[in-house]
């Protein structure tokens, strides 16, 4: 779990780039979102904040669709410490190694067991969290478009607004959606780097960490 090697096969360059795009878009969306929610400084920024939000929201959606399609073509490592590769989608979805391990993983993180649990490319909880970001992004996009004037009167958005009891509630849901992403990012960054910073080195700098002893 902590000391294994980190090879480029785990995160090929294309996914290092999509990860950067996601990160930058998320920062832009959350920052501009906070500003739209409550403009905490003046200085002519609302137009910029909204522009930022609208650009980032399209970019993040296009990147997400691209990322999903790419999963069927790009090969990635089947295990984090390994150079053995297979089609990414197989490593992204739960693998055989993840089976029966969810409860054990929870126990591990709650200190109810000492040994680390066997996992696939990612742990069971981790996979659930990563996969959940897909529907969450689409829900955030849906609630976002529903409060966006050019779309809010369109059938599928209008009926959603009615369903949640009006545009104010839709705004509040979109606002809480942001907090879900903030929580995800906090936990994600924490767990990725809790043992050491090798995971950050590979995903941001694309720098490998070799197994102990080799240099």
């Amino acid at each position, binding site marked *: 779990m902590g000391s294994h090697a980190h090879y480029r096969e785990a995160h090929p360059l294309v996914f290092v780039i999509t990860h950067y795009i996601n990160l930058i878009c998320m920062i832009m969306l959350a920052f501009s979102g906070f500003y739209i*929610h409550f*403009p905490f400084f003046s200085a002519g920024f*609302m137009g910029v904040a909204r522009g930022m939000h609208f650009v980032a929201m399209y970019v993040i959606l296009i990147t997400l669709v691209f990322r999903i399609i790419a999963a069927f073509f790009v090969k990635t490592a089947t295990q984090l410490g390994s150079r053995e590769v297979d089609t990414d989608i197989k490593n992204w979805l739960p693998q055989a190694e993840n089976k*029966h*391990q969810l409860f054990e993983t929870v126990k591990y993180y709650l200190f109810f067991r000492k040994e680390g649990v066997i996992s696939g490319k990612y742990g069971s909880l981790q996979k659930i969290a990563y996969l959940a970001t897909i529907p969450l992004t689409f829900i955030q996009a849906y609630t976002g478009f529903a409060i966006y004037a050019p779309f809010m009167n369109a059938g599928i958005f209008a009926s959603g607004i*009615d369903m949640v009891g009006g*545009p104010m509630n839709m705004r*509040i849901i979109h606002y809480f959606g942001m907090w879900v992403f903030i929580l995800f990012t906090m936990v994600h960054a924490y767990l990725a780097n809790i*043992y050491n910073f090798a995971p950050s080195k590979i995903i941001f700098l694309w720098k490998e960490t070799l197994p102990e002893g080799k240099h």
Partner: protein
Amino acid sequence: MAHEGHNALHDLLTVRGVTRRDFLKYCGSIAAALGMSETMAPQIAAALEGAPKLMPTLWLNGGSCTGCTESIAQVDSPDVATIVLDYLSTNYFETIMAAAGEQAEKQIEETIAEGGYIVIYEGSVMTGQDGNTLLVAGKKGTEILSEAARGAAAVIAVGSCAVDGGWVYGYPNPAEATGVQAWLNHEGITTPVVNLPTCPVNPEWIVAMVVQLLLVADRDVAAFVEKTEWVTRSYTDRKYGAVDLLMPKGIFGQSIHDNCPRRGHFENGEFVTEFGSKEEAMGYCLYKVGCKGPQTFTNCPVVRWNRRTSWCVEAGSPCIGCGGLNWVDNNSPFFHRLADMQMGDALGNVQPGSVGAVVGGVAAAALVAHGLGMKAAGRVGDGPPMEEMKKYDRKRLAKKGGDK
């Protein structure tokens, strides 16, 4: 308001000192309310003047503060809206009719018996205590509405209370107030209901509907419903379930924010943060002091209020969203950006921002605590010792071994 001798409209206008020019200007603003070009003003004027007599009308009050009546009846000088509405042949109008007592109540019966009338309903429908929360002349308000609506060509629900219960419907709603459409659905009455929210109703909107009925539909209610562009807004009444509301699109199809003269300040990030400040004096955008314009769909900024004099934001107040559905619960506190979330008696009303900050803070604290735990458990650095085999497999093997 009952009619003595049906004068042609222009006679009425002349008597009240309204010039032809004022009248045409007025018709232009009605055109705007209907989403027509202002060049339609002469046709609108002709339609109003040409009509020999409008439809007989019953103006019924439910659980109301009479604010909507006030809104149309504030005649300290001649106003076209009042005259045009006067021109509806109003047979019953509790607050301002001359008749009283049994004689007045009889007007309702007679109008219903004759048929071919419309009902204008002001105020909420009070259904609490089996309808006994509102009695008029010893009769339940709910019964009066049902009887009148059943035979009517159409019902115009004026003001938010008539639309969905308005502020009377606000939690906890002890009178069990509801809207006209919800009540008629419950009673199985299918008379079309035109909904004109805001608290109170803007008289221009009633006039716009009257003009639409005359000009576009030639007093044929079926054609009126068919030819007017509507938006349907749906909501769920706590007592009567799902309700679809018909609202004229020309009036309720666009957000206030999209037509607001302060929108430039919004985009520039020029906001009023405090009342009484320099920014307020400069007419900056009221978003930060709770303006609900972005979530409210009326054309207040276009048609404006009090004889096209001004409207809330122009007068310096944030829009409080009175044209929305369940508008008090959905928009209060009025001076906050977002509505409070009603979290029951234990937690009270909480701002979404506070919820977010608390959840974020708790999560951050939990992660720090967890990190310390990971360190104490010696996992940081190289990680924990790994299991050789999944626990599930170990158990299964052990079981197999035991079976042997």
